[in-house]
């Protein structure tokens, strides 16, 4: 029962995180900023709109957002929140979690390539490069936690985390980098950039419109939520649901602060950031193996 509640919480509150991030950024820029619930309004509007498709595209372009959303909804069922076991928990579920996000990415990328646009191809190319490097970081970090907890499911791992020690801190930093990279945030990608040439995630979805685009925005919000829930579970393990939700909001504020105080890295530097995060996770693994 509790387990299904947390999926409903994720489905309902995920778009709020982006609102918090944007309000934080507005605060740093000295603006009022958009309403906290802006993404909800956007989604409602997009769902009521028609759509325009490129003549080049095929069913792959239409399938992209559908498969992406389905995959990330399933992924939310694997990540526990606030010590409540996830509805889908079994030995090795962390592998399924990572690969469901991979499935979502695969379809986003081929939907982008379906338009035949050089810009979208460029974004897709960067996306696969960075995610190929982020994936091992995620696995190394989870392996370090798993070794500490002696469990192979995210529910078991997160219920056994002890939030102290150098290994824990290293894992938390590595997971934060993964979260920023996977969700196309600064310093890897700038969601507010104004030039197609410099975008990654945003440029891949340039041609989507109407309900398709709503699915994409909602799916992206859910992806931020699941990776955020993972990080919050590591940083603040425990059973208090309100504290965990508060931590999610705090995480969104942190992301907003990072976006406000940092510039985006040059594209050539991003692999170094990811490999660096991988080194941190590997170090954590060595520490827990002693």
């Amino acid at each position: 029962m509790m387990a299904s509640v947390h999926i409903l919480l994720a489905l309902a509150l995920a778009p709020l995180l982006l609102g918090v991030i944007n309000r934080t950024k507005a605060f740093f820029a000295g603006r009022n900023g958009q309403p906290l619930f802006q993404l909800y309004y956007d989604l409602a509007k997009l769902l009521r709109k028609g759509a325009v498709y490129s003549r080049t595209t095929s069913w792959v372009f239409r399938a992209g957002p559908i498969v992406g959303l389905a995959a990330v909804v399933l992924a939310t069922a694997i990540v526990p929140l606030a010590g409540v076991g996830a509805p889908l928990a079994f030995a090795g579920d962390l592998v399924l979690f990572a690969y469901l996000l991979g499935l979502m990415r695969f379809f986003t990328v081929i939907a982008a390539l379906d338009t035949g646009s050089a810009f979208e191809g460029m974004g897709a190319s960067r996306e696969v490069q960075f995610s190929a490097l982020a994936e091992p970081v995620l696995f190394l970090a989870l392996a370090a936690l798993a070794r500490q907890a002696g469990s192979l499911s995210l529910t078991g791992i997160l219920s056994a985390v002890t939030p102290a020690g150098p290994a824990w801190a290293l894992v938390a930093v590595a997971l934060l980098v993964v979260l920023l990279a996977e969700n196309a945030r600064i310093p890897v990608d700038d969601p507010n950039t104004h030039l197609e040439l410099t975008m990654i995630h945003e440029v891949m979805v340039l041609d989507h419109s109407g309900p398709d685009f709503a699915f994409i925005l909602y799916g992206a919000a859910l992806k931020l939520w699941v990776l955020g829930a993972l990080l919050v579970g590591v940083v603040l393990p425990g059973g208090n649901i309100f504290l965990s939700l508060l931590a999610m909001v705090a995480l969104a504020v942190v992301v907003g602060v990072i976006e406000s105080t940092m510039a985006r890295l040059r594209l050539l530097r991003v692999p170094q950031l990811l490999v660096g995060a991988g080194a941190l996770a590997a170090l954590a693994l060595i520490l827990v193996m002693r």
Partner: protein
Amino acid sequence: MQLLLLAVVALLFGGLAALWRERVGPVTTVAGCVIGLVGAVHVLWTGATVSLKLPWAVPFGSFYVEADALSAFFLLPILGLSALAAIYGSEYLTPWRGKKSLGASWFFFNLLVASMVMVVLARNGVLFLVVWEVMALASFFLVTFEDERDDVRAAGWTYLVATHLGTAFLLAMFVLLGCEKGSLDFDRFTTGKAGLVFVLALIGFGTKAGFWPLHVWLPEAHPAAPSHVSALMSGVMIKTGIYGLLRVLTFLGPPPVWWGWVLVGVGLSSGILGVVFALAQHDLKRLLAYHSVENIGIIVLGIGVGLLGMSAGLPVLAALGFAGALLHVVNHALFKGLLFLGAGAVLHETGTRDIEHLGGLLKRMPATAATFLIGAIAISGLPPLNGFISEFLIYLGAFKGGVTANAAIAVPLLAVITGLALIGGLAAACFTKAFGVVFLGEPRSEHADHAHEPGPAMRAPMLLLAAGCVAIGMLSPLTLGVLAPVVSALTPAETLWDAARPLVFVSGAGIVAMVLIGIVAVVRRPLLARRHVGETGTWDCGYAAPTARMQYTGSSFAQPLTELFRPLLGTRKKFTPPTGYFPETGALTTDTPDVSREKVYRPTFALVEAGLGRLRWLQHGNVQLYVLYIALTLLVLLVWKLS
């Protein structure tokens, strides 16, 4: 057993009949394969090991064949894919009808299938080497089908040399195994020097399987062969190397830890370098050939996990590793067979394998594109298809050991986890490139524009293979019933059932994912029903006259990653920049030759050639002189024998 031998006989006679009437070739292949499949399934079903031993006049030889679970398991993909490839080939080869001797091609095809069957049945060293050699020669003649082309002849030559170097190591291995008891029957082998035997097997079988850096023949021979032959060679023939390695492991007893380390190292280098080189290719079939190296790497990682589990006394780990490796053998046969057949269909319709000249084929070849997409998702190891299942078993084994075992075992296992994650990400990058550039967007050339769907004989095998990929993904717990007895040939497998229980959840999640996709699709439909749905050109920032050549190419898509791995790849670039205020022409060509071929084999063989060149003075082309050599040799031998 009788059925299996009957299948071999049927294939051989069918091959001979094909020489007489080429049209009967594929029919007899399918018939032989079906007979053999019934036999193999029977062996797996009853769980009985059946054998047959007949005397043979050859020294140390005996006609000793046996079908146990391990043999029967490898027969399933061998016979299944052979039958489908034959059906496909019957249409694929039609353009050559009347120009080439297709009967000979079918003869060698049947000979190849029959010899693969015999390889997994043979239980005598001499018999094994004979059928191994027949397999190599039959596939050589299949590779050199288009022997009027220089590149095909060169590829065939590379393959012939590589396979014989591998066989030399196997010969030494069998001698070592059999020397103590003076018999080459498998059941009388002794393992005095297990370490040396292991290394010889690794090199000998690794050459056939395509371990890095012994893989050099793969990216040459597979693109050169006709596509149904590439599918067969890449899908199952190279797996006979894996079979050989596993079979030898059953002789050798408990493995020391270093074997596991070595296999993990081989698996990681094959897996990562295989996919990195695949990324740099723009020949579709060459790209797929490098992915075979990658997938063989994943299989070897599974065997490595299994060996580490055995040496550490962790039966769960061992069972999961071997089960993952074995299942990946079947899975790779399914999706790699499918992808090669798809690539063949593209080649058949467009006449080019260069992905930079393709594009937009999805609208022209919808069934080929859909099945190729299924193969691409499966080979990237993504749920809910079969590639994920076998990788999941290997992951699960590696995690189980990595979480509990001591450092000597845990370190290689954690390397397996990281390596698999990296390989998975890069494979997804490579197959979004392959599928995206070939099938999506706009056609980049006339040939691609005028392509259309191939006939039913080529489509049906692709559809069946794609169905197999989906079925194993959705029904994975059922595979355990087949896998458990096979795994128990290598290591105690009682723990497998319990350890692999998560497969129920994995496949369940896969089914849920399909349902969710259905729900989202159903929700989307009414949303668009009464709204305006328009069509326009792709948004390109307001540029007025886009052409298909402005699309992102495969090379540009892969460029960030190939740039990252440039020190490994050694890509050669030829760049003619456009110059002047009104530039007219500019050109960029890239070419990524195989690094081990360029850096290891070419210099070595050049050295050998230079060394042997010094003996040229012996060879004058004068027949009388050669007769003198023979006479002198006989004289020397006579004197030696008498003294």
